[in-house]
């Protein structure tokens, strides 16, 4: 049997606290539901009118005592639920306490920009974190409201333009945790996915080291042709590649696209063939995406793919 995700697989202390609270609450509500359902079914069986019976039943108008009892019992239940809520809030959403953010997560229509404040790494959609270490993220948006949600790691938090929010991100064990934007944000809200890659401290350091390298720009061959096309075909109007004139922030930073597992915020796995398909017509795979179909010829696509693959 495959493993159930989300709430059924809490993978951080925050999510464990959350799952615990949810299970307590579900237990209380299931008991209440069971009582009501039992009462209704008992009534259906016990108090059905037989066709022969012409008498009206005893006319009972109510009881003050019963009303008081069943007003006080829900009061008590609400008090318990509220105390559980207060107790869990800090565990689920630890306070910022004046820490500086390690990460800035910026929602774009329809991808995530990820900036590491200490190392200066800038990447997209795939968030590398050292397992077991708390990272404070500042969550922002550049256009409309988005929501950062990795169900196995914790709470949702809105990315609101003009209103930065803070979120502690931690994963107990190394692994890949999938998430998505949870606030409707336009045509491709469905394909604004998040991939949190939690790895050991060493692997994380290694990844960070690769990410800050400024790769040399190929001058010759197919990759060199691709580099020229990247400058001339308007790719650079939206994307950044370190070490070149391309420095725009409209689309994801492509310097280390090689290092990423997916293209288009989770639409395709990142292979040269898929990259080729994507560049030929991104609208086919992500209809409404802000990346237009640039009407590149197959030879041009191949050259640009070769260039992006050569950046190391």
């Amino acid at each position, binding site marked *: 049997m495959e*493993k*159930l*995700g989300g*709430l059924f697989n809490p993978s951080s202390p925050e999510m464990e*606290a*959350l799952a615990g*609270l*949810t299970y307590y*609450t579900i237990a209380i509500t299931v008991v*209440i*539901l069971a009582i*009501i*359902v039992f009462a*209704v079914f008992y*009534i*259906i069986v016990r*108090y*059905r009118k037989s066709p022969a019976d012409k*008498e*009206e*039943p*005893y*006319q*009972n*108008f*109510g009881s*003050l005592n019963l*009303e008081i009892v*069943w*007003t006080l019992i829900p*009061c008590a239940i*609400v008090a318990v*639920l*509220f105390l559980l*809520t*207060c107790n*869990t809030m800090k565990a*689920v*959403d630890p306070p910022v306490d004046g820490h500086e953010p390690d990460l800035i997560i910026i929602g774009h*229509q329809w991808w995530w920009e990820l900036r590491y404040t200490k190392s200066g790494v800038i990447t997209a959609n795939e968030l590398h974190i050292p397992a077991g270490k708390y990272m404070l993220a500042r969550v922002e948006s550049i256009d409309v*409201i988005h929501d950062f*949600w990795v*169900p*196995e790691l914790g*709470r*949702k938090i809105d990315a*609101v*333009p*003009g*209103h930065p929010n803070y979120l502690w991100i931690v994963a107990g064990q190394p692994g890949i945790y*999938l*998430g*998505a934007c*949870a*606030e*409707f944000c*336009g045509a491709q*809200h*469905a394909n604004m996915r998040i991939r949190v890659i939690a790895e050991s401290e060493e692997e994380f350091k290694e990844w960070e080291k690769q990410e800050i390298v400024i790769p040399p720009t190929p001058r010759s061959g197919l990759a060199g042709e691709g580099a020229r096309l990247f400058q001339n075909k308007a790719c650079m109007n939206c994307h950044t590649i370190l070490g070149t004139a391309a420095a725009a922030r409209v689309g994801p930073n492509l310097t280390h696209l090689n290092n990423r597992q997916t293209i288009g915020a989770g639409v395709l796995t990142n292979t040269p063939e898929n990259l080729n398909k994507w560049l030929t017509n991104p609208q086919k795979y992500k*209809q409404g995406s802000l990346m237009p179909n640039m009407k590149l010829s197959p030879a041009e696509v191949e050259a640009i793919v070769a260039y992006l693959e050569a950046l190391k």
Partner: protein
Amino acid sequence: MSSRLPLVPENTEPLPSLKENQGMLTWVASVDHKQIGLMYLIITMVFFVVGGLEALLMRIQLAQPEMSFISPEVYNQLFTMHGTTMIFFVVMPFLIGVGVYMVPLMIGARDMAFPRLNALSFWLIVFGGILIYYSFLTQSGAPDMGWFAYSPLSEKPFSLNKGPTYWALGLLATGISSVASGLNNIVTILTMRTPGMSMRRIPLFVWMILVTSFLLIFVIPIIASAFAMMLLDRLLGAAFFTPAHGGSAILWQHFFWGFGHPEVYILILPAFGIISEVIPVFSRKPIFGYEFVAGSTVAIGLLSVGVWAHHMFAVGLGDVANLYFSFASMLIAIPTGVKVLNWVATMWGGKIIFATPMLFATAFIIEFVMGGLTGVAIASVPIDWVVTDSYFIVAHFHYVLYGGSMFAIFAGVYYWFPKFTGRMMSETLGKWHFWLTVIGFNMTFFVQHFLGVMGMPRRTYTYHDFPYWGSMNLISTIGAIVLAASVLVFIWNVQVSLRRGKKASNNPWHAWTLEWAASSPPAVHNFDLVPPVRGRRPLWDLAHPEQPDEPNAKVID
């Protein structure tokens, strides 16, 4: 000064009379509360079918992962229009329509206090609906920003299409309609009751309509002004809700939910009213704790205006605001629970007749409690952080609005159909409709609770093939098809019963409120003679002079 001068010239032309056959004009020009009420019911059923088809198309698209049955743009238009239609053009006008028909009859009045205002309210709903649906014909299609139209997505430059403009204008029209209905109901209920019909004797349905009407006149102006601001932003370049120009994205949410949460109670309180009429009649007992059912409604009405930000726990308002709104929201569970227990206690010890209205009312209790309990759970801030904007929420509010409001609406239609038309609805088709609804509804929405906590966000036109997501969505889609079939059975039942249904007597269910003293269907003037009102159940008192309700009926003095 001559007192013989007439202030108003004498009318020499005969006024249009309902007795003459003038075809459609007798309807279009009518200011009769019964005709207007029926027109509300007919138009809402048309919108119900349209909104249902939109939902069905979405469920087909979601039947399997990565389907491309409809495009993302069309999907976004469909869920926006589905939500808008079901809330503003189905549940709300249906309940107001039943109120328009029943309130004057229940309080022994001749008509509403302002009959022409009543007609205006109805026609503004039609106008608003046409305006919104017309946007499908514009070049860029219908609005596609979701029924809560969060800014800045609903603003330029993120929505350059005309859909959101039509949407705001259309809803502005229905907003005027709602305020007018609210005022009309309040004045009617407060001033036009027949002698003896004190506020402590009016039927509970009338109580619920009264509280709903106060909510309407308090909260609709909030959203109407927000629509006006949104239109200023979109058409004249103002920047109320655009952060890039100094506005606030969160301000819109406060306005929207300041209206939007009380709106939930506008959609459910009249439904509670229907249930509070149906359950006693079919249990053959008076409502248990009348004062508490009415009083808890007032409590819900008051609390409902102070809980809006529980829709905004993920926005980042801070712990203090979040905890206040969490606590206030949980408090609503108390008066709501009191109501449910009073309904159960009404059935307890009764002699229950499970005709179709009672089947829907009984199922309502269970389905609504499901939706209510998930509602209490998500009032807890951390749980809300898990489930908000996921399919769990979709499941939750469909349990409240379909399992709650729609089940009550069906109960009400089966209950009052003989009064509306003079004919009974078919019980056989009614039972088919009921069971298909129960099966289809639970199949569609129960699994969505699990999809939500497993990580499926709402409003996504497709999804990856994660473990069990495909099969759960398929179950949900099959359920939606069953639910669609149930609606067809219902429409068929209405059609057949209108033509060939068994003739109904004035009081086929042996009910006790005044509308059953009028003929079926009621005469234009409603009553030849309003029966004397000496208690909450005038027709019980007439039938059982040896055992009148009062003075025993009062639980508290």
